[in-house]
């Protein structure tokens, strides 16, 4: 009996249920302290706001729009970033040429490009997707490049002894050995994509979760702002789980780890 209770407790603890309960309690207490829903809505008030936003379809639409923007830019950035990182990583000349710029562009966040990107890619979907592509491409390319540089020398030597050509070494050794770094870059890029899209939607959009958070302020709908914040966290959580689970299923043999540590952040 006691072991069953202990197992249940362990289960609850491991799933972070206790932590979330604690957050709700603290949140409620703070809201009680403020006693002003316009300033700090309680969990229940926020939930009510969420129901209202959900029932008229606005919330789902915002989530959908933001997700699509992120997905498009992230996929595009990944598609370009991986080959780019592979090429830069493989060529020492290119690496030396590009290295000085990395620590330069690292400090220019995607959102700083909003104005010029709006001019270049249009104020519609173009610049938003471009922002996310930029931030993704950079992180994915950088991580991929690091992966290439870190391929064990012995693996390359072994494949040379086994008669592999340079191109075969690239395709059958360097690329598979770098997969965990690519996935790590993609995961990190997902986080930065959220930062970029929320910024962009606050500055210039008529839809999206960032837009929801921004405009709710004008109507003093602080509960909707909270809903927006919560939804962002949830979307990020789901996206990260999706990447983890998918890579675990399809890329397991490449040694893609859960919660791989961040190698490079923008």
């Amino acid at each position, binding site marked *: 009996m006691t072991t069953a209770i202990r197992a249940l407790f362990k289960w609850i603890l491991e799933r972070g249920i206790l932590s979330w309960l604690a957050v709700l309690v603290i949140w409620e207490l703070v809201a009680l302290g403020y006693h002003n829903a316009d300033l700090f809505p309680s969990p229940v008030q926020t939930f009510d706001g969420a129901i209202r936003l959900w029932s008229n379809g606005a919330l789902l639409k915002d989530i959908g729009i933001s997700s699509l923007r992120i997905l498009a830019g992230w996929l595009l950035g990944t598609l370009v970033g991986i080959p780019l990182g592979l090429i830069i990583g493989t060529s020492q000349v290119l690496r030396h040429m590009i290295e000085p710029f990395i620590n330069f562009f690292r400090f220019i966040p995607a959102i700083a490009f909003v104005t010029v990107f709006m001019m270049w890619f249009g104020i519609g979907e173009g610049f938003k997707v471009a922002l996310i592509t930029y931030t993704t491409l950079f992180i994915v390319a950088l991580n991929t490049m690091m992966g290439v540089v870190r391929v064990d020398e012995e693996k390359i030597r072994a494949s040379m002894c086994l*008669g592999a050509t340079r191109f075969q070494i690239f395709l059958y050794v360097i690329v598979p050995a770098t997969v965990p770094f690519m996935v790590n870059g993609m995961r990190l890029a997902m986080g930065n994509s959220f930062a970029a899209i929320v910024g962009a939607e606050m500055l210039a959009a008529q839809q999206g979760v960032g837009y929801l958070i921004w405009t709710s302020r004008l109507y003093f709908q602080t509960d909707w702002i909270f809903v927006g914040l919560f939804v962002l966290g949830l979307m990020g959580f789901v996206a990260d789980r999706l990447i983890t689970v998918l890579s675990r299923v399809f890329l397991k*043999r*490449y040694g893609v780890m859960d919660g791989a540590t961040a190698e490079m952040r923008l």
Partner: protein
Amino acid sequence: MSERKLQQITIRANGVSKKYGDSVEADFVLEDVKLEIRQGEFFILLGPSGCGKSTLLNMMAGFVEPTRGDIFVHDQPVRRPGPDRGMVFQHPDASLFPWLNVRQNVEFGLKMKHMKREERRLISNRFLDMVGLSEHETKFPHELSGGMKQRLQLARVLANDPEILLMDEPFGALDAQTRSVMQAELVRIWLHTNKTVAFVTHDLNEAILLGQKIGVMSRSPSAHIEAVYHVDLPYPRDATSTEFVELYKDIASHFNVTGRSDGVQVGAFPPSLTKLGGLP
């Protein structure tokens, strides 16, 4: 064994020197190395850690370029790695392909040659069987023990049918039990395949158990092969036999006399395990 004298020289070095880096003050790791390995011979490079054994082996493989002189394989200077020289590395985790299973690792070289699937299968079957990994063909390297990983490395190299086998302390990280099993297996496989073997070790016992010739290296800097011992004992060798013991003392004293025993595993003598490396 006398007919071996007539056999062709496979690997030759006549005054090879190596230093890392371009600096003038940098010491030569190896200086004026002279070496002859004949076809089908089991040649041991024995020396203390850091004396340049791996460097010398890597030059034979074509991974590392000599600073002066050349290593010749069949009178051709070594310029780059090639499938005629297979390497078994010290660290299997760094050299095996973790995304390929056991069979796929063995077939890697064959696949690079665009060999057909059925043909690959025949060859990999043969070598998986030879190293005793047939039942583990679908496992991945991380699911194997240290000894099994080295078996896999050996099979991967053998499947590619190199003329020369280069081995860099392949059993150094194994426990004593596994090591002696692997030593016996290696001798069996070598007798079976007639490869020319250059085997690096710092373990004197291992050297006498395996080698037909033992090239004893001096300490770095400016290391070279200062003596070559012939081991004219039949396989499997008995580490407690008088001849073995005599030779052991001979080579060990060689290290002691020249004050270069540090790093070479001379160890307690006689070896506590009897029949080390003997065939089962």
